[in-house]
């Protein structure tokens, strides 16, 4: 009930002299829409061009991964999580592996920890590259998408060489990583960093500095820090509002406590702030990679674990920072080989919930831009 009254009061504020029967248009955006990057279904109530209400409908690719994992062993369920947030598949796997390790109380070798962090940061850059291109495409600029893919493909090639796959690498096993890094890995990563440094100013030329882009982004979709926390936002969405929430800083895992990096914070809270956070985050990821790439410690890449893993009875929660925000893996074990219940706290789900709040009163074009800045990956939301 209170939602409807709230909408009415908001609508009254924006257009005070408007009668109630003035044409409200209910439009379905998605599941088959060019801007939703997947099968998100939004029901939008429009007044002219102004949005009065946005209501997400989910479930078009819900596979019930949580239920599936209940019948998979601790080695097997990790790979399924690649299919949640497929753009940061590696970080999903990492969170799961860390959670299992927490239960097993296995010490991961230093080398494996560093490799994990390196891969995670490469994944983060790849994810942000794709987001950058798709974001520009949402605003009607096509060219940046292809330029972003040039760098992204380089990362994917590096992944392919070491992990054997480009997107859902399945490189993680409880206790370390599946294979040692490829002999060419270090050199290729260094080449990539060089390429990235050479091309990064083009991003600003093409998109960031563009006056049309800035006007589209600045001052729309404003999300305050309190709202961001209250809505459970995390990752770049919350950091764009000035809410400090980087899991890598506050709850460091793997080798993150050994590297120096800044948590990127913007205080604008609008679409442009969220955009800047991601662009600057790529730079921080590059810094992390640079610190680690020459300092990969020697040793095992995998700790010795039993063939059949059994977690002790108890509950284990692990947080990890994916490209979209804080991923939580919550395992409840009854002592068997499979988890009793598993819960994935996906960042996208909480980030999506804020869309209706920030989109109210904006134009339909802004909604698309906001969806871009929230960086929605639908399988992550639907799980």
């Amino acid at each position: 009930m209170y939602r409807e009254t709230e909408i009415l009061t908001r609508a009254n504020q924006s257009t005070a002299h408007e009668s109630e029967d003035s044409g409200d248009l209910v439009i379905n955006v998605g599941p088959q829409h060019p801007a939703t990057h997947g099968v998100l279904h939004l029901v939008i109530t429009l007044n002219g061009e102004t949005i009065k209400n946005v209501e997400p409908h989910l479930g078009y690719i819900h596979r019930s991964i949580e239920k599936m994992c209940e019948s998979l062993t601790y080695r097997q369920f990790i790979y399924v999580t690649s299919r949640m947030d497929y753009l940061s598949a590696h970080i999903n796997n990492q969170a799961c592996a860390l959670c299992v390790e927490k239960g097993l109380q296995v010490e991961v070798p230093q080398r494996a920890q560093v490799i994990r962090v390196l891969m995670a940061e490469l994944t983060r850059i790849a994810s942000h590259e794709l987001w950058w291109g798709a974001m520009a495409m949402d605003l009607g600029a096509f060219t940046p998408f292809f330029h972003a893919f040039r760098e992204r493909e380089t990362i994917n090639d590096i992944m392919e060489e070491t992990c054997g796959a480009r997107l859902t690498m399945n490189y993680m096993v409880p206790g370390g990583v599946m294979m040692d890094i490829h002999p060419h890995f270090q050199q290729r990563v260094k080449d990539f960093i060089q390429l990235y440094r050479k091309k990064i100013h083009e991003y600003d030329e093409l998109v960031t500095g563009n006056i049309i882009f800035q006007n589209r982004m600045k001052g729309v979709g404003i999300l305050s820090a309190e709202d961001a926390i209250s809505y459970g936002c995390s990752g770049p969405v919350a950091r764009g509002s000035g809410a400090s929430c980087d899991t890598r800083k506050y709850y460091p895992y793997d080798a993150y406590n050994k590297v120096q990096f800044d948590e990127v914070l913007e205080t604008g809270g609008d679409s442009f702030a969220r955009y800047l956070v991601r662009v600057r985050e790529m730079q921080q990821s590059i810094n992390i990679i640079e610190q680690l790439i020459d300092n990969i410690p020697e040793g095992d890449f995998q700790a010795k674990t039993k063939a059949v893993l059994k977690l002790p009875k108890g509950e284990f929660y692990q947080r990890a920072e994916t490209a979209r925000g804080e991923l939580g893996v919550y395992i409840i074990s009854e002592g068997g080989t499979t988890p009793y219940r598993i819960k994935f706290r996906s960042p996208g789900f909480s980030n999506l919930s804020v869309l209706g709040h920030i989109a109210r009163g904006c134009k339909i074009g802004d909604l698309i831009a906001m969806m871009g800045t929230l960086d929605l990956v639908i399988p992550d939301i639907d799980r």
Partner: protein
Amino acid sequence: MLNEALKQKVSELLPTTAFDEGGEWLNINIEATDWPAFAQHLRNDGSLFFDYLFCLTCVDWKTHLTMVYHLSSTKHRHNMVIKIKLDRDKPEIETASGIWRTAEFHEREVFEMFGVNFINHPDLRLLILPDGWEGKNPLRKDFEDPVNMIKL
């Protein structure tokens, strides 16, 4: 605030609380009737200030359901886990969406996956399941779907 201090503070607020040992964070079990007032305290008390509900879920223990709230404070950086037992046949609990807005979506998910009824929830409708879904709740342990579930 450390777990010990939190424990003391919580037992001051709610003397009937039972604490679960083990786990990295403080685990507390409370009654469903205490929840709304307790939640207000957790959110608004200056020294607790749990403003970030980062995980809300439910567990089906076959005999009962347990709501699990993972709370964190962005100011003090401490965490706490709250568990509330619910009756399995008629699960009902007061909504937390007035305190943490993120609960609105998460509770809708729990509503359809476990069938927990959230009292005073502003918009308790199906979110993920298709419209007109009737029958059992998918994440309960006794859910069977012979068509779509493949047993290995």
